[in-house]
């Protein structure tokens, strides 16, 4: 019996290894302009591991 379904996600610990390229969109430079969040941003680096 499988009790847990793990959804495929980006592994944050693995993403630490690549150093961060800084090319992604600035958090507030989009629709909201009044509340900050980064969860809905895209990674611009195609090479970065998931």
């Amino acid at each position: 019996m499988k009790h847990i379904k793990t959804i495929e996600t980006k592994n944050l610990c693995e993403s630490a290894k690549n150093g961060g390229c800084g090319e992604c969109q600035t958090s507030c430079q989009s629709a909201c302009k009044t509340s900050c969040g980064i969860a809905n941003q895209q990674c611009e680096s195609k090479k970065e591991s998931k």
Partner: protein
Amino acid sequence: MIHQYKLGGFNIVLDICSGSVHAVDDVAYDIISMYETAEKDAVIAAMKEKYANGEDITENDIIECYEQIEELKNAGKLFAPDTFEPMAGELKNKTRGVVKALCIHIAHTCNLNCAYCFASQGKYQGERAIMSYEVGKRALDFLIENSGTRKNLEVDFFGGEPLMNFEVVKQLVAYARRVEKEHGKNFRFTLTTNGLLIDDDVIDFANKEMSNVVLSLDGRKEIHDRYRVDYAGNGSWERIVPKFQKLVEARGGKNYYMRGTFTHANPDFLKDIQQMLDLGFTELSMEPVVCASGDPSELTAEDLPVVLEQYEKLAELMLKREKEGRPFTFYHYMIDLTGGPCIYKRISGCGSGTEYMAVTPWGDLYPCHQFVGDEKFRLGDIYEGVTNTAIQQEFSDCNVYAREECRNCWARLYCSGGCAANAYHATGKITGIYEYGCELFKKRMECAIMVAVAKMLGEE
């Protein structure tokens, strides 16, 4: 750290530091809640007692479930420790001095007189002003000069109402397009407008040159026209909706957002989202009002449970329409679990005052559009660059570990510490906490992740 919640018929467990998301059954949900505070034998005994009368749960099931949880822990997908704090300043240090985004205040004036405007009808507590081409050109040069190796440069034409200075917007875009290649840059422009001055010329230009267009509409006519009135006091809904519809239709699928504000007058903002959908718009954003404490539009403690419920109902509506083949996007529920930002981005804060700045019509630099008009936050100008290095350092030090409250918050790697301006206005410090905003943000993340889980499991 673990965060677990039940929503939309799912038991969801978030492992905050690995970024893992799990959909679990009731037994796993209960075991995970006890896992860190009780020994294995005690957990299993508690589960046996709780599920003694259950039809299908045997002792073997419980032990098997416990072992699955242990496996995930050993694989780094549950109870992963937070080892990221030493990296908190790394990305900012590596990119120190690099500016990649400007909010260009092309017009500190507006043809609407919205009482709830955080920019005080576009004037930002100052005099009315529009930016000249020369100032705008210098702002773009400043951005190019200070962008280092960064290729994609973001420029938002903001106000006030940017279309009140449309000729300069067009000239600046033309200038940027002329020089971007020789500098190895790619400008991404955004225009935020109240819609009144949209015409065929604006539509053609915006659809050709703007990566994104943000259109201000609060939803229902009576809600929109309560605040979004002209100087004669007339509502603007009927004048702008056909213009927005025409622009969006002509946009042919390019990015846009229909962006509304909800206030104390409409904590039941799902009705406004429904109105936007009924008008044919599908890329939606609805934001809580930002206003001074005590303002009549301010969201109250009584509004909070209403708003939280609206977010849940919005998630349900999204899933329902998705199934019906009529999907829509809600800005805050866009979450890409496999391709979202890396850990450096998640812990670095929003970038205001460092990689992102606002430029006034006369060329002053501020940490972001929300600080414009507050002289003590003036960073410098586009001619001399940043001269108030003390203030910039405060923003540079602002990251997810700079706030004690954030260290123990499950949402910290989704919000990156929140909005410095909201924190400042709520507490007097940019490293403070705007608790009301945090509550809304956490609910939005729970809903966004639930929607993503439902979609992913639905595809299996």
